[in-house]
């Protein structure tokens, strides 16, 4: 490859996009070329940032969040028709406009005309005619004002007034300081696990202006400073019901701690929380751990091992506004997307002598000294449950976590897997859109039989058949590491 071509590989270094050959070519060239070496050194902070799966996930989410330009958005057909009609009418109008209106322009060279002399500004005030005396009980008659000054005279008058730039742009001492406050807190799911990447929208109820923030990898958020006043706080995350809290009154200088617990469900549903307006002496409706949520609807926990009773018929909710409905639908479509795209893939990475990991064939027989890591990646947000067969041939849960799409998850979480001479190491993974209420008892398998008890999601059981909602899918498969 030529020097210019190799330089083009720089973009793949930090993201880990390079193949082994490309990486080798780039680094070998950097050894010979100081500029390339320095360019690589400058890529290090980015590479380090992108090694963090949470950061990667957040960037991916941000890429998906970019709104489409207005000209890509779907416009109402009526509006398009009206615009088309206007264009046609305009076109026809220009074409058939009477010729007197569209006389051709003729450019004629003309000698400069002498400018008429401007009347000098009055240097003294003209005496005004005395106002007629207002009679009691009668309205004041209209004033007999002199005619308005022509524009030129106004401009001259402004110049004469000598308004300096500094006077025009100097900050006014009369501007009052803005009274601000902010909202901060943590977003968790029902299992008290943090929810990263949730969108928190704070809406001023008086002005209807929105301020948004996102939860970081610790599930924490902090809004930019907002004006003091009454607000509603909305928290949204894929796979969860919308959390909506109204009547949050922020006072000047206040940092309101607001912790939200999101309920599992479709995004179109929402859990509303009411908070009483705080009084002067304290914050009513707020306990030690923040505002006390008052759920206005009952949420049935999804348990795949127990038949889900049919939900009682409830009164239809009032139709939401069109924009909110469209947003909810888009959100739902992105969060719960049934179809073949839903999946979990895995790869086996073997540790090389240099400490780097390299992907190997999962079927490859390993040496007992080999250190490997199983890397899982999901196409959608969901929950992962990992089980391992122990030395007594029983399945044991060894971990569960919430997965962010295309963010690698490693088994084990820290360190590596090594062979112990048993011949094979068996894992079983289950990935679900919704959290499963899996108990250790339900997961226990009969020793030696290899069959899970009570229809638990273990090997040999088609767990996809037991789903309460067709749109909510699960995948499960075994992973076996074979040792020589």
């Amino acid at each position, binding site marked *: 490859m030529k020097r210019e071509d190799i330089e083009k590989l720089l973009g793949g270094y930090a*993201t880990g*996009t390079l193949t082994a050959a490309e990486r*080798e070519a780039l680094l070998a060239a*950097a*050894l010979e070329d100081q500029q390339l070496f320095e360019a690589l*050194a400058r890529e290090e*902070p980015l590479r380090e*940032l992108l090694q963090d799966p949470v950061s990667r996930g957040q960037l991916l989410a941000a890429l998906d969040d*970019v709104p489409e330009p207005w000209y890509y958005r779907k416009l109402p057909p009526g509006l398009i028709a009206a615009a088309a009609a206007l264009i046609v009418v305009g076109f026809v109008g220009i074409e058939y406009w009477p010729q007197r209106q569209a006389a051709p322009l003729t450019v004629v060279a003309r000698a400069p005309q002498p400018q008429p002399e401007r009347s000098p500004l009055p240097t003294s005030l003209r005496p005004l005619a005395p106002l007629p005396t207002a009679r009691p009980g009668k309205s004041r008659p209209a004033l007999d004002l002199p005619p308005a000054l022509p524009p030129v005279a106004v401009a001259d008058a402004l110049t004469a007034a000598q308004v300096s730039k500094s006077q025009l742009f100097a900050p006014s001492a009369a501007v009052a300081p803005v009274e601000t406050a902010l909202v901060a807190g943590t977003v968790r799911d029902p299992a008290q696990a943090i929810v990263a990447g949730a969108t928190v929208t704070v809406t001023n109820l008086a002005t209807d202006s929105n301020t948004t923030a996102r939860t970081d990898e610790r599930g924490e958020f902090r809004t930019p400073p907002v004006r003091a006043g009454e607000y509603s706080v909305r928290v949204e995350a894929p796979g969860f019901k919308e959390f909506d809290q109204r009547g949050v009154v922020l006072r000047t200088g206040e940092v309101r701690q607001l912790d939200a617990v999101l309920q599992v469900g479709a995004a179109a549903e929402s859990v509303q929380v009411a908070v009483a307006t705080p009084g002067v002496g304290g914050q009513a409706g707020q306990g030690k751990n923040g505002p006390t949520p008052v759920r206005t609807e009952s949420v049935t926990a999804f348990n795949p091992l127990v038949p889900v009773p049919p939900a009682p018929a409830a009164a239809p909710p009032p139709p939401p506004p069109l924009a909110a409905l469209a947003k909810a639908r888009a959100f739902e479509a992105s969060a719960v997307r049934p179809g073949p795209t839903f999946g979990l893939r895995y790869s086996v990475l073997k540790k090389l002598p*240099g400490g780097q990991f390299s992907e190997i064939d999962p079927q490859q027989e390993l040496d007992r000294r080999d250190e490997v890591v199983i890397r899982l990646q999901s196409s959608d947000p969901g929950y992962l449950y990992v089980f391992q067969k122990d030395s007594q041939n029983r399945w044991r849960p060894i971990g569960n976590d919430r997965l962010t799409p295309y963010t690698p998850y490693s088994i084990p979480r820290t360190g590596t897997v090594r062979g112990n001479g048993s011949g094979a190491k068996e894992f079983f993974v289950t990935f679900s859109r919704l959290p499963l209420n899996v108990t250790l008892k339900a997961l226990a398998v009969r020793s030696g039989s290899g069959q899970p008890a009570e229809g638990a999601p273990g090997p040999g059981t088609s767990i996809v058949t037991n789903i309460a909602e067709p749109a909510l899918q699960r995948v499960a498969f075994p992973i076996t590491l074979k040792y020589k």
Partner: protein
Amino acid sequence: MSREEVLVKLRERIVRFAASHLSRDAAEDLAQEVLLLLHEKYAHLERPEDLLALSLRIVRFKMMSWRRKAVRHGEYSQISIEDIPLPDLEASPADYVERKEMLDRLTGAMSQLGERCRELMRLKLQGRTFPEIQKILGVSSINTVYTWDHRCRKHLLDLMGGDWKR
């Protein structure tokens, strides 16, 4: 290329790079520190690409430590390289804040990219290689993908103010 030859070249690269950020003496000391580490802890590494990638990381850690120490002492004059503590590889609050700031800036800059660049970045972040990206985007030549990526990276870097880290 033998390991010794690689290390000689590496030393030259590191000194010249570090000298643009530190004093010449500090740069030479830093290069020596890196080579010492490579010699003592990573003697089993032979391939140039492994040695170079590792040294880039060590140089970054060393320079970050140097800067932090200088800031902590309230001084910007040179200090002995022996006073530079070994880098703490555990995540520190300073690292966290630095990463978060960079992530915010990167997120903002990426939102200003064009559709093709965003798609390219999305595929890269998903862990695809350039040949895979070529297939997904249906491009006949991989050089086209390289060129697109080169331009997108340059644009993104411009949006970030010319440097990933401010």
